[in-house]
């Protein structure tokens, strides 16, 4: 079954879920999300997913 793991979906899911936790902390007032942090986070998420997509094709 491990060979059938969709790695891009896995990485995207983990990143989206982790970002959801950040949003939850922001909504609760624990952290204050600003564009200065959001922009690199967004680029990191897109980059990580693209990288995984590229690497998964080589497997």
């Amino acid at each position: 079954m491990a060979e059938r793991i969709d790695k891009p979906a896995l990485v995207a899911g983990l990143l989206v879920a982790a970002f959801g936790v950040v949003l939850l902390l922001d909504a609760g007032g624990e952290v204050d999300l600003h564009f200065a942090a959001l922009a690199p986070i967004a680029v990191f998420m897109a980059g990580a997913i693209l990288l995984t997509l590229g690497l998964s094709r080589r497997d």
Partner: protein
Amino acid sequence: MTTAAQTPTPEPPVSKRLTRSSGDRVIAGVAGGFGRYVGVDPVVIRLALIVLVFFGGAGLVLYGAAWLIVPSDDKEGDGSFDGRDVARRTGIALGILALTIVAAAGGFWGFATGGGTATAIVVIVVGAALVIGAFTGGTRWLIVPALALALSAGAVAAADLDVRGGVGERIYRPATGNQLRSEYKLGIGHLRLDLRNTDFSPGTHRVHLKLGVGQAEVLVPDNVCVASTAHISAGQTSVFDHSTGGADHDWQDDRTAPEGTPVLNVDADIGFGELRIAEQPDLYAPGNEACNG
């Protein structure tokens, strides 16, 4: 027996066709095929498309159009037109596009209407669904809508956007400085506080403007000294003839006035948009002559 000279037969010219790549593809092979066609790494094409998504969704439109129009390279040589395949691809593309738009709108409204916690939980659940789908298969199509949901909610969270103040145009003209409310609030639209005919008594008057998206405009008489502070998540501040802006933009203009001159302290909190303080609408001219300099 004679031997004819063997002259090499020239290779027939290979027509360079733009096709979607079946071997180098993430969704439909558009970037892979286009990269191969122009001799550019497909990753560069993908990054460009992602950047274009944030400019009015042009990346999605271009990708969808190419998906529909450009044939796949695994069907080269088959000149037949497969109507059912086109219809299927059209349906998938439109479905993902619609879901992405709905997800982005949902993330925006969820956070902007005070449902930040619920929206964040939805984002976590969608992320978890992707993780589970990674093991069961068939959920890769959910990546783009999930990112749209998460990042639109993130943009609203970063902007501290709150649209519960209403939508539209609000114009306030208090008759005297004492009738000035402590706060004027609008969710989306144009908020104008017209104080040009307001009778201000000497002393300090304070007003707070809270706007989600749009323009907050304060029109002031020339006999009042205006001090101003503002936080704008993304946009600009135009105070008389001075204009500045950007993301996470803070503005502060401290002023003092001669004895007996009314002072108006304007404090603004704006998500996306502009704070404008002027003596006349559509006039960007020096002002604040009532201040000490």
